[in-house]
């Protein structure tokens, strides 16, 4: 049995060490907000925070999480998160919404590390998160708006 500390709760899961965290989180811990998109760390839909750093959970494994804290979209909280969620809703950022857990995990990590990201910073931090609906324009605007509100 492996112990996973997800959103402050320890889940004992029957998972081999080489199981991607994505499937342990979704299928074994039952938290389905983290999405499967590619399995190869190419799309960012499965982004979680491992010890507060954004990682792709499809290429991060149960053994990597030993002693670490995992935060998923369900457990993400705090001022930056609240602001991002508020902005996302007010600006109607999502379309289908499937990639948005990952987008928000990446956006919150960016805004936590960089209080006033430039367009180039956003390109660097967010280009790993695909959105087939093409919500990029609003994601960019949303990050700028959230930064502005957080500074105020």
């Amino acid at each position, binding site marked *: 049995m492996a112990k996973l500390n997800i959103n402050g709760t320890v889940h004992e899961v029957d998972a081999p060490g080489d199981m991607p965290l994505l499937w342990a989180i979704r*299928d074994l811990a039952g938290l*389905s907000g983290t*999405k499967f998109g590619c399995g190869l760390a190419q799309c960012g839909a499965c982004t979680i925070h491992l010890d507060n750093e954004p990682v792709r959970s499809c290429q991060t494994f149960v053994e990597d999480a030993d002693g670490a804290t995992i935060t998923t979209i*369900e457990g993400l909280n705090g001022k930056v998160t609240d602001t991002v969620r508020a902005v996302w809703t007010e600006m*109607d950022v999502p379309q289908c*919404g499937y990639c948005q857990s990952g987008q*928000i995990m990446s956006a919150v990590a960016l805004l936590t590390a960089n209080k006033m990201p430039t367009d180039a910073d956003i*390109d660097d931090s967010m280009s790993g998160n695909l959105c*087939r609906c093409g919500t*990029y324009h609003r994601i960019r605007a949303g990050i700028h708006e959230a930064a502005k509100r957080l500074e105020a």
Partner: protein
Amino acid sequence: MMNIMRKYGLEPAMETSRRQFIVGAAAVTGGLVVGFGAGAATPGKQKEAPTIDPFDAYIQISADNKVTILSSQFDMGQGSYHGIATLVIEELGASWDQITVQGASGNKAYYANLAFGGTFQGSGGSTSITSFYTRYRTAGATARTMLSEAAAKAWGVPVTEISVAEGRLAHKSGKSATFGDMAGAAVNVPVPKNVTLKAPSEWTEIGRVDARRHDTASKTDGTHDFTIDVKLPGMLTAVMIHPPRFGGTVKSFDAAKAKSMPGVVDVVALPRGVAVVAQNTWAALQARDAVTVQWDDSEAEMRGTDQIIAEYKTLATGKPGIIAVDTGDADEAFAGAAKVLEAEYTFPYLAHAAMEPLNAVAHRNADGILDIWGGHQMPDIYQDHAAKAAGVKPEQVRMNIMKTGGGFGRRACPADGDITAEVASIAKAIGFTAPVKLQWTRENDMRGGRYRPAYVHRLKAGLDAVGNLVAWDHHIVGQSIIKDTLPFLLAKNGLDFMSVEGAANMPYTIPNFRVGVTNAEVGVPVLWWRSVGSTHNAYATEVFLDEVARAAGKDPLAMRLELLKDKPRHVGVLKLAAEKAGWGVKTIPKGHALGLSVHESFHSYVAEVAEVSVEEGLPKVHRVVAAVDCGIPINPNVIEAQVQGSIGFGLGAILAEKVTMTAGVVDQGNYDTYTPLRMNAMPDVDVHIVASDASPTGIGEPAVPPIGPAVANAVAAATGKVYRDLPMIKDG
């Protein structure tokens, strides 16, 4: 072509004239249900109001004041649930806080899409609003009338004195009630025969600029459940091994090792591959790698795309198999032309590559009903396919419509029901012993076919001595989409109007005009891909037209306006986009250039102006100005979002998306080799919506076609290079 389209009802805004609807209402545990049945086509011969099944209606109002809107139209992200809800709320007077929208299925009388001839429920062709604009408003108005009558009776006041707003009924005496309070009594009110819909001047929801989608919050906290998130007690997960080539079948397979692996429940052969069923996804994926399959390729498509395209190019130089339109005398006009231009354009296969890889869940209940959850874009049709696959009767299959992580056309598979039939066959193969979720991997999805077909176009234009465009000849070679999807739509001569849409009905007045198509026979399954024929026809026609403009020494905008006779809506969006982009006026940075394009698809008109530079040999799009005319704008903010997203979607495709095959095997498998647009390539987008009182038309697709040609035309303006072979970036 237009006759074929009309014949099959592929025309907007005809619902009230084509069909009469019968309103009915029924009680459901103290609540009110309103729905409409399709009645006789002859006015005045309506049937009796049908009995309403509470789960088959449009609106349910329960005693606890909840309003549930049952949407015939499928939401894959484009906002159709919000659009349908807007129509209902406008007339019903409900509050956004009390409504939920659910995908409906199971009753063609209510949910059939009139834009598809009214024969089946389906979403597509940007018809959600067009086809249901009157029906859902009428449902809302009917429910409001009945609630008002009930309140008037209860309070002993004239119904004309009842006001309705924000989900409350009120009278000037101070009396007020919720919808829930009156829902039970409203059931006994006779169903009004002719409700009056609000005049546009009375609208408070339709056209509201500050309106935001009602379903966004759950998309920010992980609670918005998609098919992949369906959880049932004891549910198993299945993954697929598909043939490496289209048309291949299983000869034999060895699953001995896989079956011995932990968590594996079964490995079963299906009509189109092998399914590995396990207790969780990872166990299934690992066991999948341990299965060896021998394939029978005797019926498989063995050609690579290089060969297929080469064959198309040869076909394109010959005479078209089918002439779609032929006016004037093109041959004679070319013979007399002062200048003749010719060009060949090539388009690759494209994958939809929606973020949620295809999936479905099946579970047979104790009562024998087989529940199937999924992104059912055409539920009636899938119900039949699933029943056949499961070996049960269609009425034993219940289709549960889930929210869906993108579609772009991929979830409309009338030919065989695709994933829906596949999950039903897995459920059957394991003896219906447990609920089972079928989850395709990205590679299954990418290599699963049903692509936007590849095409080769040959175009020829003739100019007279003063530069007037006098002749146009356009030959399109590629696979027909409807031949394998809705073959009854094929014209007698084999013409698939979708192959030529946007080309055969080009808006420009050219006296000698011929468009033909040659249907190619290839074993690669093809499908609708966001904006369908216009994805390639808009590019070929609009880029070639710029080539003609340069040859004639004319400004591309001026030339288009010259050729657009009696096309006020094309002219409207073109002029608006040009003006907002500062066409011919604004000083743009050195090395940048503007390109424009206008195109109508699905009865909506979009013009786009792209500002582009070329950096290290690659196009970089800085800004796009779009002008759109989709009739009455129901939700301006959703329209803007769809235009922005469509530009990203279309731009990604022309820049770097392609599906290729080597000896019949698809070369791409994931987003590392099939490369949609990412954040760093997304331009700034400025959207302008034309004020209109025309019937509303769709916006999920029509902003896709113009972006490719606008960008290509800008690159040509900047560098002289014309991209005639897509994608622009070859090794992206």
